[in-house]
């Protein structure tokens, strides 16, 4: 009984506003990374950053609102992110093999 309550207490030691602020900053860094960088690997990293900022926020809200649904979602997001990275990296390898670069600006054939 006591042990189950330790973790929320630990989490709640930090005020909610701080969580929000951190995840907002992380998310913004992720967006800026996606938009500004040209390297595909860095863009992937930025996307992961955004996903994890959302996870952080979801967990924080889940504790403060005493609702465990969000924690379940976080696991789903992690699984999906792992799968996405697997597929994405595979595509990245193929792109590199074909055009010998991973610069996003080299891919401009996506038009009619």
């Amino acid at each position, binding site marked *: 009984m006591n042990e189950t309550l330790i973790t929320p207490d630990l989490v709640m030691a930090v005020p909610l506003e701080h969580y929000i602020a951190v995840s907002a900053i992380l998310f913004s860094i992720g967006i800026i990374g996606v*938009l500004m960088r*040209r390297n595909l690997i860095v863009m992937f990293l930025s996307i992961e950053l955004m996903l994890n900022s959302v996870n952080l926020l979801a967990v924080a809200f889940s504790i403060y609102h005493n609702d465990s649904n969000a924690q379940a979602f976080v696991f789903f997001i992690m699984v999906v992110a792992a799968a996405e990275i697997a597929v994405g990296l595979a595509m990245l390898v193929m792109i590199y093999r074909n055009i010998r670069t991973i610069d*996003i600006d080299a891919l*401009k054939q*996506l*038009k*009619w």
Partner: protein
Amino acid sequence: MASFDTTHIISLLVPLLPLAGFFGYFLYGDKLSESKVGTLASGWVILSFLLSLVLFGQIPVDGAIQVNYFNWMQAGSFTVPFAFQIDQLSVIMMMLVTGVGSLIHIYSIGYMHGDNGFSRFFAYLNLFIFFMLLLVMANNYVLMFAGWEGVGLCSYLLIGFWYKNPEYSAAANKAFIVNRIGDLFMLYGLYMIFKHFGTFVYSDINGMAQSVFNADTAIIGIITLLLFAGATGKSAQIPLHTWLPDAMAGPTPVSALIHAATMVTAGIYLIIRSNVLFALAPLTNEIIVIIGLATTLVAGMIALKQNDIKKVLAYSTVSQLGLMFFALGVGAYAAAFFHLLTHAFFKALLFLGAGSVIHGMHGEQDIRKMGGLSGKMKYTHITFLIAVIAIIALPPLSGFFSKDYILASVFGKSPVLWFFGALSGLLTAFYMMRLYLLVFKGKSRMPEADAAKIHESPSVMLMPLYVLAGLSALGGFMNIPSIFGGSQWLENFLKPVVSLSELHIDHGTEWILMGISTVLVLGIVFWTYNMYVKKNDVPESDAVLATMPFANFLNRKFYFDEFYDAVFSQPLLKFSTFIQKWIETSIVDKVTDSFGMLSFFLSGQVRKLQNGHISFYLFAMVLGILGILTIFILL
């Protein structure tokens, strides 16, 4: 759909057999050899002729056989039955169409030999026979009109048979368009008939004619006038006659069958068929007399100066048709019909003979380049001579009886009219003798090398000539007038159909009239013989002709074509050009074009968004999400 006895089946088969021939073309047209296709196509029509003979034997003495099949159209009180009326008039027309038709089919086997469109030609001929039979067998005006349009279509197809020659195609178009003008009036006539009679069936209309006439005397006059206007188109009467001479562009058997013997007589058939109506319209009859007389004289004069063997015959046909209308106008229906029959025989023979000459001379049609053919084409010459004697009305060949019958009937009406009719006969005598003498007599006017190549036609072409020559010679015996002790079989036979007007003159006058016209015709014969054989006159070349005002006027056909061109065609063309230039291109085209240009421009702009850069897409996506979030937050 009553009980289908043998008469039903036979009368249905008569038109259906040639139709089967037409559809057969699609099955075997390009698979079988020429002779087989020709024999099959002729076979259908010959069978149809034999069945017509059977029907002829079944006609009751004083009535008609009505054979109903089904209701063709029905809308409210508007009913058109698909039904035939087999009576004295239609059965003779059926025998004429299928009889002369089968002879011309047989002839065509020889004439069209080696032509690329051999089987197509026979398919069209079969289709023509079908429509013509529909026209004469129908028991109501609408079904008749269907046949009427159908023969027009076949005429168009066959005039333009050699469609690669643009002149021939133009002639076909002309025939079709000029006929449409007549057909338009005819349609109005049919509307009027339906409005005032409520039915299209001949027998019903004939029964109601008197009561409609009593209600309003003008109605019948207008209806008959419209029907007659339709007939002027089909039967090439002034002012719609100009298509027939041009129609000679078609192969010669077509000219013989369609443009001499059968289709062009449809107008006369129509008026005889509606004689009950026409008897109630004295004004229309006067107009018919005037038009018929004008046509017969004008066409006769034009024929005097034509130098194309087929053109002479074409104008001769127009002239003879005019004479028939002339007879119709004075109420001599039996005489007109009699002349229709004999004319069908000798004019078909003349055309087939001309075809034989053209065939033998390898396509030459100018009579100035012929001459002295009688030795080289013996059988063609003899049959042609018989036809010429028949058409210039020397006794005892068929034309004499029929023309004399017309003239005698006309004299009963008015001696002045008789004079003009006789004048037309003299014109006929002159141009036919001129044609005959220039082609067959006198000296040969062609180069020696060409002369050596001339050959008599094959027997498949000569056989129909013999039969038609026999008919031309003996056809007059159908209706021997009473002064020769004849029984006037045809006139009596037609009595149930044709209301006869008593126009008989006493025998003494008739003898005198007959004597006068025969002597005058003989005089013309000697005159022309003297001119073209003894003095060996040759018609002037076109250049010389142009310096002779009156002759040139005749040679240019009274300038009818030029007149129509100036009055109708050119203004219409100018008007269309004006519309095309100022309304079509500058307004309509611009408006529609600008819509196209606008969407082209807009899509060009939008297209720039799709530039293919992933980073741009990502940026747009983020911007979009931010925009949506902003809206959510603000709302």
